[in-house]
C-alpha cells in the first residue's frame, strides 16, 4: 500500500488520525458492524483474584513390568494342588492292581458270573481315585493337565472313574495282552470329558508301565508357530518340526523315565551324531532333546527301538483331532499350503491311527480326542465319526443306514477321509446319576461344594447340566456364583 509518508525522510505525519484507514473503498456493511478483532492476550487479572489451576500429574510407574514370557507362563501355569482344600479321607490311588481289578470286574459282569469278593467293577465306578505322585509327575511332563480343567481347586489330582473309563481300561489291557493296537477316536459334546478320558488313558498307561507319547494340542503342530524344514530324500516332501520334536522327545524321556532308563538300545542307527551303541532310551531322548537339528532322526530311532518286539506297549495320544485333518498353516517354498499329513509328526500319528495292520508289535493304543470348543470344523472327520458309529450300531443289530458323503460338499479332505476310514469311535455322553453323585460327594468332601449331596441336589445339577455333561455339572456346582 502506498504510504502518504515520505519514503526518504523519517519525518512522521503531524496528525496520525489522518492516516488513511485500510478499508475497502466500497462496502455494503457499515464500518461499525465489523467484528472487533479478538485480542490475543488474556485480559489482565485483577489483583488478588484466584484461579483454578490443575496440573497434570506425571505418570508414576509402579512395580516392574512383567518380564518377557512371564505373562505366558502365568497363563499356562498349571496348579495341581490347593492347600486350602480339605483332604479327602479314604481316597484310593490309581495303581496297576486297581486297573487289573477294574478289568476283572468288567469281565465278570460281561460273563454274567457272580462278582468275586473284594474290589469289583461296581465298586469303582462312580468313585474318585487319586493319582500317585509319580503318575502326576509323568502326566505333568507330557502336558496332560490343562489350564481349563479345575485341578487347582483340590488338594491333589483325582479322577472320576466312569463306565466309559472302565471300558477304555479293559480295551487297552486287552490290546496289550493280544499285542494289538487299539485305534480309537474319543468324541462327545463340549464338556463331556474327552480330554480327561485321554488323561485317564495316560494315567492307566503310566501305572501299567507303558511308554506314553502325548501331543497335548494338535493345533500347535499345524498353526505355523514352530520352525519347520524339509526332510532330505523324501518325496513328496515331508516337513519336520525340529524344535517341537526336540521338546517332545524331552517330554517323552522325562515322563517315561522309569521305563526308558532300564531299556537299552539294541540296534545301530545311522544318526547325524555319534551315539553310543547301548545307551538307555532315556539317554537317547535326552540327546534328541538337546539338539533340534537331530531331533527327528533320533525320534525315528527311538520309535523303532520302542516298537522292537519284547518292549513295553506304547500309548500315543493326541488332543483336538480336527486340527490335523486339513491343510496346515505352513507354506511350501512355492507358497502353497502344506497339508497337515505332510508334517513328520502328524504323518507318524496318522499312519498309526489309520493303518489297520498294527504299527505296534508289542500292543498298545492310539487314541485321539476331538475338541468341540476351539477347533476347526473338519467335514471329513465328522463324517468318518458318524459313519463309524452307524456301522457299529448296525453290527449290534440296530436299524439305520450309514450316512453317505454329500456329493456336492467341497470341503471334504481326501487324505483325512482315507486316514479315518476305519477307526473306532468312543462317544462320551453325560455321567450317570451314580457317577454324578460320586463326583459331587468328592467335591463336598474337598470342601469346595457347600451343600448337602443327596439324590435331589444330584438330580437337579444333573438335569441342569444337559443330562449329566460333566463340564456343565462342574460349572453349575463349583464355578457359578449365584
Amino acid at each position, binding site marked *: 500500500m502506498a504510504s502518504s509518508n515520505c519514503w526518504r525522510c523519517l519525518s512522521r505525519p503531524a496528525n496520525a488520525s489522518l492516516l488513511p484507514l485500510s478499508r475497502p473503498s466500497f462496502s455494503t456493511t457499515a464500518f461499525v458492524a465489523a467484528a472487533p478483532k479478538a485480542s490475543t492476550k488474556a485480559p489482565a487479572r485483577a489483583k488478588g483474584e484466584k484461579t483454578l489451576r490443575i496440573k497434570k500429574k506425571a505418570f508414576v510407574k509402579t512395580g516392574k513390568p512383567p518380564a518377557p514370557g512371564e505373562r505366558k507362563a502365568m497363563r499356562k501355569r498349571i496348579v495341581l494342588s490347593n492347600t486350602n482344600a480339605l483332604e479327602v479321607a479314604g481316597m484310593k490311588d490309581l495303581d496297576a492292581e486297581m486297573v487289573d481289578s477294574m478289568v476283572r470286574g468288567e469281565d465278570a459282569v460281561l460273563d454274567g458270573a457272580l462278582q468275586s469278593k473284594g474290589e469289583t467293577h461296581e465298586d469303582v465306578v462312580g468313585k474318585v481315585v487319586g493319582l500317585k505322585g509319580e503318575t502326576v509327575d509323568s502326566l505333568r511332563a507330557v502336558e496332560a493337565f490343562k489350564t481349563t480343567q479345575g485341578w487347582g481347586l483340590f488338594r491333589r489330582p483325582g479322577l472320576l472313574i466312569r463306565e466309559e473309563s472302565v471300558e477304555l481300561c479293559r480295551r487297552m489291557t486287552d490290546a496289550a495282552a493280544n499285542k494289538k493296537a487299539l485305534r480309537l477316536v474319543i468324541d462327545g459334546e463340549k464338556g463331556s470329558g474327552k480330554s480327561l478320558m485321554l488323561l485317564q488313558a495316560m494315567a492307566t498307561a503310566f501305572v501299567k508301565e507303558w511308554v506314553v507319547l502325548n501331543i497335548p494340542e494338535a493345533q500347535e503342530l499345524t498353526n505355523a508357530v514352530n520352525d519347520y524344514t524339509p526332510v532330505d530324500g523324501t518325496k513328496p516332501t515331508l516337513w519336520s518340526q525340529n524344535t517341537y520334536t526336540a521338546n517332545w522327545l524331552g517330554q517323552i524321556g522325562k515322563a517315561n523315565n522309569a521305563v526308558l532308563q532300564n531299556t537299552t538300545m539294541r540296534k545301530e542307527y545311522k544318526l547325524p551324531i555319534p551315539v553310543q551303541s547301548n545307551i538307555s532310551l532315556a539317554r537317547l531322548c535326552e540327546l534328541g532333546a538337546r539338539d533340534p537339528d537331530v531331533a527327528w532322526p533320533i525320534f525315528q530311532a527311538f520309535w523303532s527301538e520302542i516298537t522292537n518286539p519284547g518292549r513295553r506297549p506304547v500309548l500315543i495320544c493326541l488332543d483336538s483331532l480336527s486340527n490335523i485333518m486339513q491343510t496346515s498353516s505352513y507354506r511350501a517354498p512355492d507358497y502353497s499350503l502344506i497339508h497337515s499329513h505332510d508334517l513328520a509328526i502328524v504323518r507318524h500319528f496318522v499312519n498309526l491311527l489309520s493303518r489297520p495292520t498294527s504299527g505296534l508289535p508289542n500292543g498298545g493304543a492310539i487314541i485321539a480326542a476331538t475338541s468341540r470348543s476351539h477347533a476347526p470344523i473338519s467335514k471329513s472327520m465328522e463324517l468318518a465319526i458318524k459313519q463309524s458309529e452307524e456301522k457299529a450300531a448296525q453290527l449290534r443289530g440296530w436299524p439305520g443306514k450309514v450316512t453317505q458323503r454329500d456329493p*456336492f460338499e467341497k470341503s471334504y479332505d481326501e487324505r483325512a477321509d482315507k486316514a479315518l476310514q476305519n477307526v473306532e469311535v468312543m462317544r462320551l455322553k453325560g455321567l450317570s446319576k451314580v457317577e454324578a453323585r460320586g463326583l459331587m460327594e468328592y467335591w*463336598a468332601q474337598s470342601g469346595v461344594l457347600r451343600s*448337602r449331596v443327596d*439324590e435331589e441336589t444330584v438330580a437337579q445339577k444333573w438335569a441342569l447340566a444337559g443330562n449329566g455333561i460333566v463340564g456343565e455339572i462342574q460349572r453349575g456346582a463349583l464355578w457359578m456364583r449365584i
Partner: protein
Amino acid sequence: MATAVRCSIRLAAKGCSCNSTANQFVTKTIGLERSFSTTASRSKRTRSKRVAAKLEKSNHPLAKEVIALEKELDGLTKDPSDNAWDPISQRARTRFPIASLPPRAGKLKQTFMNVGDPDPWEYEDTLEDDDDDINALAHGELEQHREIRHYARLAAWELPLLSKLAKPFQPPTANMPLRFRYSSYMGEQHPAEKKVVLEFSPADMPNLTGLQREKLKKLAGVRYNPETDIVKMNCEMFETQAQNKRYLGDVVDSLLAEARDPKDTFEDVPLDTRHHHFKPKPKFPEEWLLTAERREELQQYRRRAAMKDQQKELVGQIVDGRLQIEEGLSKAAAARQVMPELLMVGDLKPKGKRVAVRR
C-alpha cells in the same frame, strides 16, 4: 318433497362430478326397478289425461264407479276445512321468500378456461338447507342398508339356483399327470393374470424307466422338490394365459424327450438337492408324555431315591459340604493347638534394613 328432489339431484350431481374424493361419500342407487323399497312411494298418482278421457267416454259401469271414487278421493285430499298446514307454509314463506332463494344458475358454457371446473350449482354452500330432511350422510347410510338388503335377497333367492350348475368332481386320471394353476382376479386387470403354474410328479410321467425318471429330476434342477417329489414351474412371459400354458406344455415335452434320450443318462451326476431346505419338524417325543404309568414310574423312582437317602443318612454316609468344611477347620485348629507355638528368642527387633513396601 322439493328438498328431497333437490337432494337427490345433488347426489346425482355429486356422482357425476370429476372430484374423486367426493365420490367416496356419494351413495349409489341400485336401479329404480326394484320391487321393494323402504322409502315411501310417490304420494300422488296422476293418471294420464288419455286414460281419464277414455274413462269418461266409456259407459261401462265400472268406469263410472272409478270416476266417482276418484272424485271422492280428490274431495278428501282437498278438504277445505283442513288448513293445519297453512301457518307452517306461511311461516316458511316469510322466512324464505321466493325472491331470496339463490338464483339457480344455468349450466355454464364449456370453454377452454373453465374446462374441468365444477359447475357453480355443485357447490354445497351455495345451496340453502331447509332442515326438513336427513343429511347426506344419513342418506348414504340408508342407501347402504338398501344395498345390504338387496344382496341378502340375492343370496336368499338366487344363490341356491347356482347349485343347478354344479358338476360332480372328476379326479384326474393317470393320463392327466399335469396340473395347471391359473389365476383370476374376478374380471379385474392384473399383471399376474397371464401367469400359469405347472406342477407334475416325475413318478407319474408315462413310459419312463427308473434311470430316465432320475434324469428328468436332474434336468428339472431347482424346480424339483425332493421332499414332495414334485416339479413345479411357471410361465408368464407371454401375453395370454393360453400362450403361457402352451409354452409350459412344450417344455414338459422337451424335458421328457431329453430324459428318454439314451445318449447321456446323467448316471454319474448325483441328484442335487442343495436348493431345497429340508426343514426338520420338531415333534413332541412320545416318551415325554406324562402317562399314568410314567407318573407311577417317576413316583417310584422318587420314593426309591428318598429311601436311598434315608438309608445313607442312617449309616451316616450322606456328605454335607458345610459340615465337611467345619470339620476340616476344627481338625486344622486342633492340629495347630498340638503344635507348640514358636517364640522368637532374643532381640525382637528384626535384623536388616527395613524396606518400605513400594506401591
